[in-house]
């Protein structure tokens, strides 16, 4: 997919996806939509992030997080998913690792669930449609929190 949004910026600054020691931040992407997973994955890898894993429902997200832990720096968490929703999965991940960094991915009109997620410990949220700038900004901000 060639849109100008997906081209990494070419200059000499350190890509947003790399830590100070030059190793990539590792992200777990949770979404029941392959389209969204791919979108987020492309944006993140173009900035040097590493996709540590993907999950397509809440239960799978928890399992993957535990499996990857402690080699996972951030989770993008869809809210609406089959089997177990993202808010429940967030709650369980926070129980397991109180320092987990989770960013919620939401459609419009889910303010209540977003609010609840922030109270449960989510670091930030992104409302779809996703664009490169928005995704990177929110994720980088959450990593610094």
């Amino acid at each position, binding site marked *: *997919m*060639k*849109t100008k949004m997906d081209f990494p910026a070419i200059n000499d600054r350190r890509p947003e996806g790399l830590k100070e020691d030059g190793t990539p931040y590792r992200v777990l992407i949770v*979404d*029941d*939509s*392959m*389209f*969204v997973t791919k979108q987020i994955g492309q944006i993140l890898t173009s900035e040097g992030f590493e996709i540590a894993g993907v999950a397509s429902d809440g239960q799978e997200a928890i399992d993957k997080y535990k499996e990857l832990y402690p080699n996972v720096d951030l989770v993008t968490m*869809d809210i*609406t*998913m089959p089997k177990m929703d993202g808010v429940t999965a967030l709650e369980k991940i926070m129980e397991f690792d109180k320092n987990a960094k989770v960013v919620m991915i939401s*459609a*419009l009109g889910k303010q209540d669930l977003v609010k609840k997620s922030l109270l449960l410990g989510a670091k930030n949220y992104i409302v*779809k*449609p996703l664009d490169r700038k928005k995704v990177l900004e929110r994720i980088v901000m959450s990593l610094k929190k």
Partner: protein
Amino acid sequence: MRVEYINPFVESAYNVLKEVLNCQVNRGELYLKSTSTPVLGVAALVGLAGDVEGRILFDMSKETAIKVASVMNGEELKELDDLAKATITELANMITAQAVTKLHDLGFKFDLTPPAIFTGDNMEVTTAEVEALIVPMVIPYGKVEINVAIRERL
């Protein structure tokens, strides 16, 4: 209009729809429409300019667009909101990008305009002096018509 222009779009529409919707896609019969084309309700339009010129229209009913966008996002969307529109635009982008790569490989040189999305009832698209070739792609959520009007520049 030469049929060879539409084939890359039909092929890539088939591949992309199948991939992003994860469903059965059936190709309907190709047909020809004269210059004035009524639009089904939601249309994403991409323009071409260069050795060849014209436009491709990805045309579907509002209901189909909402369902397609819902499946692509893993969210049940209730209306054709900004997310749904952005998703249909992105779908048009994905299909066009794949088709254009094929056309460039065949030696055609042209640029694309970013997709524009049109919605409404009783819309018509008029393309001066070029007839449109249309291939309906049938999916479980309705049909998406690939509507191509391209000609070589004189």
